């Protein structure tokens, strides 16, 4: 449980160190094309910021990478090996896990019960609650999550940031190698957000590969290594964060708005 990212010896890492590579993915829903042609790569131990407007295809792309739905065309490589995800469970068993803002946790259960959900240790027929508490606490400590008074707390009583860190911790706990964080800072205050960003940084230092999907790139910019901008179903921008800035990203978004406005006015007149 503590060895989070044990590599499968049968799968050699690709020469370029990409843990995940997506090539020429498209997705059509009937007549609607959500993704035109997306190619994306994630290096081992890298934090990739995937930004884009609402409706740019972020959710569609996540759903494909986490095995929820197959792409219409295109290929996915994991550690250099081409792979077809059969289901979310299949993708998860290969170490890819999505952390949603609010979907994952059960409010009525305690922190440790949530962390062990569906992987509970049992001395038949009883749960080994003591062991669950202890391991959950140790795991949180090892991840440096210290804002919780107790793992016995009901998740309903936690703040948004605490819930997010528990959700992340659970994914790490279940041996995830690649984390997709979907809007990890949504509806969160600055302090809480900083806590999550620290957590992301810690995970990266431990070698986790992470994709952060964020609408508000300004918030996540400090922790990402590289930025991809998804626009109109395509990746239109791919730069290391050291080669770009929040200002440049803002410039692009503003330009996009300006263009959209002009189109509106042109079609109106």
């Amino acid at each position, binding site marked *: 449980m503590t060895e989070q990212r044990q590599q499968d010896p049968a799968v050699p890492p690709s020469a370029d160190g990409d843990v995940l590579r997506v090539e020429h993915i498209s997705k059509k829903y009937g007549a609607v094309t959500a993704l035109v042609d997306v190619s994306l790569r994630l290096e081992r131990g890298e934090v990739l910021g995937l930004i884009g407007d609402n409706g740019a295809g972020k959710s569609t792309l996540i759903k494909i990478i986490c095995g929820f739905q197959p792409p219409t065309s295109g290929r996915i490589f994991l550690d250099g090996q081409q792979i077809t995800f059969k289901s979310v469970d299949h993708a998860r068993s290969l170490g890819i896990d999505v952390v949603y803002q609010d979907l994952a946790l059960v409010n009525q259960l305690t922190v440790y019960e949530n962390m062990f959900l569906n992987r509970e240790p049992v001395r038949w027929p009883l749960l080994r609650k003591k062991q669950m508490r202890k391991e959950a606490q140790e795991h949180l400590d090892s991840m440096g999550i210290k804002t919780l008074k107790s793992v016995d707390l*009901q998740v309903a009583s936690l703040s948004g940031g605490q819930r997010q860190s528990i959700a992340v911790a659970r994914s790490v706990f279940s041996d995830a190698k690649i984390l997709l964080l979907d809007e990890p800072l949504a509806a969160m205050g600055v302090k809480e957000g900083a806590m999550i960003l620290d957590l992301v940084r810690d995970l990266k230092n431990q070698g986790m590969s992470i994709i952060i999907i964020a609408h508000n790139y300004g918030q996540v910019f400090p922790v990402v290594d590289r930025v991809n901008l998804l626009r109109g179903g395509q990746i239109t921008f791919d730069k290391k964060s050291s080669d770009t800035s929040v200002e440049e990203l803002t410039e692009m978004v503003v330009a996009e708005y300006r263009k959209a406005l002009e189109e509106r006015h042109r079609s109106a007149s």
Partner: protein
Amino acid sequence: MSGAVQQAPEVVGGPPGQPSRGPLRALRDAGALLVRQREATVFVVDVLLIVYFGFISSVGRGAFFTHTNRITVTQLAAPIIILALGEVMLLICGEIDLSVGFIYQLSPFIMYFLITDYHVPGLLAILIALLSGPVIGWFNGFLTVALGLPSFIATLGTGFIINGIVLTTSNAQQQDIPPEVKGIGHWIGQYAWAEITFAVILTAIFHVLLTRTRWGLHTVATGGNQLGAREAGVSVARIKYGNFMLTGLLGSFVGLQIAFQISIIDPTSGGYTPMFYAVAAAVIGGTAMLGGSGTIIGAFLGGILLAVLTNGFSVIGISANPLPIIFGGAILLAMIANVQLTRLRDRGRA
């Protein structure tokens, strides 16, 4: 403290930092316990009611504490409690079974017909009668899980159908208990303390099931966040099927108990009334109908409360006519407490 029990946030206990000691503190702690532990509240109400009825009948001519009446109370409470155990599990995972009272109606007839018409040995007939509950429960699960009907409607339908089957096959005639099963019948429901003994044992088993096993945890997860539970790989369908089948089993068991207790197989026993009492017991005990939370001990105490009230009124000689008003009030009070405590807790988070 189990996760299945709804916890109130730290809203009780007076202003922080203000030192209080002695009886005041004890009172405050007791108050905190009452708010936090729904079971404790119902327990206190139970005790107060028993003391009240006992006191009234001791100064008058009532007979609340006589041997016969004690047995009467337990025989009122036991079937409510046993049916409530199943309903609690279902309510927690977000479902309900309205048909359980008809499963109760059907099972003694299955036993009767197997013995008299098909010459099945008594014990086997009882076993098959017991299994009829889980079979109907499976069907309820099928309607709810596979066909996507709301369980309220699905089990309303199956309830009517079973009722029709019972009335048709029995010609609405009562039957005597076949002599083959009279011996074992004593142990199931006829001995004075048989029913409440089973109720206590089953309550203990279900309490452990809910709070100490994977099944219980997954039941809470299913009702609390179905999507999240499924995401984590919990088989939500299996949990629902299972809890419908458990409830069915309890229903068929109670049916047999009552038949043996009154020594008659009655096509008009069971039905909606005991089911609604069971749901009332669950709600009064602290089980929300919103899914995700509920308590077995609370349902047990809720069942006792309903039984003591029903019996107490008649023993002290008050008309039982206004009784439903009290039941209704208790249900509303319990539900208001449930909803408001949840709201309070959510506000505490925000």
